[in-house]
């Protein structure tokens, strides 16, 4: 296994995440896409920490842990917002929530 293996997996996950965010017409599906993106980032961090730095330096892992924590916080707030939007508009389809339309 080389670094590039991990990076390729991570890139694929990232692209899938982007694809989900771009095409899915459901807010929760978008959230799942975002989680995929975040995971690909964390995977990158861990991989770089493993291959690019000396063994005793595990800063990359710690950053990944922080990333997980941020993802948790983000998910909580995201879902709260989705609930609020659902109450307000009766829908969580992003194309139907376009109050900011010019």
């Amino acid at each position, binding site marked *: 296994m080389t670094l*590039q293996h991990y990076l*390729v997996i991570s890139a694929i996950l990232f692209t899938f995440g*982007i694809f989900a965010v771009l*095409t899915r017409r459901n807010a929760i599906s978008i959230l*799942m896409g975002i989680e995929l993106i975040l995971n690909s980032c964390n995977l990158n961090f861990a991989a770089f920490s493993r291959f690019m730095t000396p063994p005793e330096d595990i800063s990359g892992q*710690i950053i990944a842990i922080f990333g997980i924590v941020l*993802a948790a916080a*983000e998910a909580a707030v995201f879902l709260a917002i989705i609930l*609020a939007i659902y109450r307000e508009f009766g829908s969580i389809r992003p194309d139907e929530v376009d109050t900011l339309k010019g």
Partner: protein
Amino acid sequence: MEFALKNFIFYGFALMTVASALLVVTVRNIVHAAFSLMVTLFGIAGLYVFLQADFLAATQVIVYVGGILVLILFGVMMTSGRLEMRIHIERGQLLLGGVVSLALLTLLLTVIANTPAWKNLTDDGTEFPPTTKRIGELILDGPFLLPFEVVSVLLLVALIGAALISRKEVRE
């Protein structure tokens, strides 16, 4: 022989991760998508193990699978009626999104393939000591103390904020 087994397992995990991620973004049923996501997350945890990041892998399982995924399922239950279980996808949007995603993927892969510093870094299979203790020291008694505290505050704020936002407004 052992090396080959290791490789086999690694590719297994990689395939599992990528395939389930593909399911996440393609299935029409949102509950199915959520469960696919769970498999993806497990797969990533497995990759972490290969990266000698034991603590990270455990955290991944506990927080993502145990926490965030449950949160997502709650969200699904609370917002989707029966009819909304299916995810709407428009053809035109699908096409455009697919083009952009493919372009992005090509770009990324080109970058990965062409960056000299990332080439030929092979995992020689050395065993690292367990990371949990060192992470604890770095976070609680080292350079990451301040970020750690800040993140805890952030988590608290997110908690309160989420509670505030999702609360039903009581109008008088």
